[in-house]
């Protein structure tokens, strides 16, 4: 299969969507001048025209409400307002206009909106543009939240999000933007709401999503050398969550390590831990183990940017500890 970067795969999906459905509108910061943040929309304005590819002036909250109004009246907007911090100011619009309001009318309007948000550190984006915030959004009923972990997943999940009639927040890990991987050239909408077994193993179950999948994958390879065969699960969908896939694995291994680069309180992994405790506690041979981000702000300096996130060595030693049972 040919290889391309996450950004190139994203651009292909946007082209497929704009060419395939005249209702699709790409709305984003700088999508015209510089081709979108990180160049995922280069040339699209020229190809599809100013009504289909719209540059937004300096607005924050209103654009989410505007997208809600557009989606309720027949358009299918894709909002590219990276980084994710942009969406924090629009929480009322997301909670009320995207999620609650369409459910109140007798005819229950669909709300086909894709929100693309960049998450996590990378390129020294600094403390105010490197956050994760996945749990804040995953808490809201009706919002689908997905976290691609590779260029292939990025292409497939974005295509599925665009085809979906519900609002979908695609959290694109900044660290993966320039990463290269094998990606099919033709459009392929991936499934949106299931986790995937990324590597089969028997000794323990390791669960991660987004950026942490790649880090965990390297840890799994190191653990192979220590004769610990870990099963790696990529959650993919954070809302809805897919505890069944995880529980099926835990039933087999009896041990689970949850790896997350967001703060640990009220997080995706705290919810998953609760699901495992509720539904699978009898399968467990050891307490649920967790690695989360530390509570400090994400630093600007490249020397410290990743300091608060679980690293490969942290995952390896947590896995060893889990196997020893101490």
């Amino acid at each position, binding site marked *: 299969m040919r290889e391309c970067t996450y950004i190139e795969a994203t651009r292909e999906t946007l082209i497929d969507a704009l060419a395939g459905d005249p209702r699709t509108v790409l709305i984003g910061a700088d999508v015209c001048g510089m081709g979108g943040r990180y160049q995922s929309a280069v040339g699209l304005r020229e190809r599809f025209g100013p009504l289909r590819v719209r540059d937004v002036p300096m607005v924050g909250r209103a654009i989410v409400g505007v997208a809600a109004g557009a989606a309720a009246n027949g358009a299918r907007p894709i909002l590219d307002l990276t980084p994710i911090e942009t969406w924090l100011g629009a929480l009322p619009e997301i909670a009320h206009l995207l999620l609650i309001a369409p459910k109140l009318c007798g005819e229950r309007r669909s709300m086909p909106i894709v929100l693309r948000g960049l998450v996590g550190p990378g390129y020294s984006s600094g403390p105010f543009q490197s956050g994760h915030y996945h749990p804040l959004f995953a808490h809201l*009923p009706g919002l689908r939240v997905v976290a691609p972990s590779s260029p292939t997943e990025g292409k497939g999940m974005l295509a599925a999000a665009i085809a979906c009639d519900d609002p979908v927040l695609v959290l694109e890990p900044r660290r993966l933007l320039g990463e290269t991987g094998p990606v099919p050239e033709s459009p392929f909408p991936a499934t949106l709401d299931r986790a995937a077994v990324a590597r089969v193993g028997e000794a323990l179950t390791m669960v991660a999503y987004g950026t942490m999948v790649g880090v965990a994958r390297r840890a799994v390879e190191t653990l192979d050398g220590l004769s610990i065969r870990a099963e790696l699960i990529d959650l993919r969908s954070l809302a809805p969550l897919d505890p069944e896939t995880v529980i099926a694995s835990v039933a087999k291994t009896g041990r689970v390590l949850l790896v997350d680069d967001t703060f640990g309180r009220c997080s995706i992994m705290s919810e998953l831990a609760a699901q495992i405790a509720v539904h699978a506690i009898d399968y467990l041979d050891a307490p649920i183990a967790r690695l989360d981000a530390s509570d400090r702000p994400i630093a600007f300096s490249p020397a410290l940017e990743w300091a608060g996130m679980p690293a490969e060595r942290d995952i390896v030693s947590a896995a060893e500890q889990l196997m020893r049972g101490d």
Partner: protein
Amino acid sequence: MKPAKLVLLTDTLRSLYEQMLRIRRAEERLVKSFHEGLIPGPFHSSLGQEAVAVGVCHHLRADDAVFGTHRGQGHAIAKGVDMTALFAEIYGREDGCCGGRAGPSFFASPRQGFVGAGIAPGTSVQLAVGAATAFQTLGSDQVAVAFLGDGAARSGTFFESAHLAADWKLPVVLICERNQFAGRRAAQGAGSGPAGAAARYFEIPGFEVDGNDVTMVYAAAFEGVRHAREGKGPMIVECATLRWRPFSESDMPSRPVEAGGPADTIDPLVMLADRLVDHHGAVSAELAEWDKRIRKEVDDSHRAAASSPWPSAATDEADSGDDRHA
């Protein structure tokens, strides 16, 4: 800027009067219903502002989209929402236009092109700008209209939305009902026209008119809707009027609804009745006859709504998304 003077036909004036009277009697009934305990939660009356809703909606087609405020009863009636469904919604009953789930501040009835009320100051503007984005993208000649109050005209999202409307040259008409209050406070600088200031700032053409004179609102909205429908971009119309009732009826006003507006207030309904009698050959017996007919219509709606059943969880569509979150 003032709109060009229009000569209104007698038939047009009669039809405007009938709609204003319908809103007046419905609002009076609803205020009474609140104090009789029939309306759960707060209720925001638009008594005194009838000319604005009627003068604007007269120019709209059924498939044009109207977004009202939390004082949206008049907007809804003027746009053709069924009065019984409206009353039942406000009483929290199953036969309401949103099955009693949304209530007086948030209801919608999209089939009649009343796409939503209230939610928060300024949301009507965001949603209307979004609807206009959809109409423009899909090549439709539909028009979106947002009603907004003094509070919304001072909100951040209003400026953001107006900016987008101007930047994208959208088919949207923003109707600022300057009723001199923002919430429970007198609107700061109410005489200076904040929406008009935004209009000038973003170079959106607009009018400032006497919102109690329905013929002035009619003339301004005629130009605004035509301007938008012809693809010339947004317009803003500021209508100076007065809110007769408190912010919410739950503020326990001392003035009974029969007393009408404050002593020195011009009653838009009386203004039009005088014009009909003085210049258009109407006689007071005829006006009294209309009043009798409309009172009966309002009474019938009230009774049907009050005897509508309470909604039950079994018909609760709003909950049907929950199973997605296992």
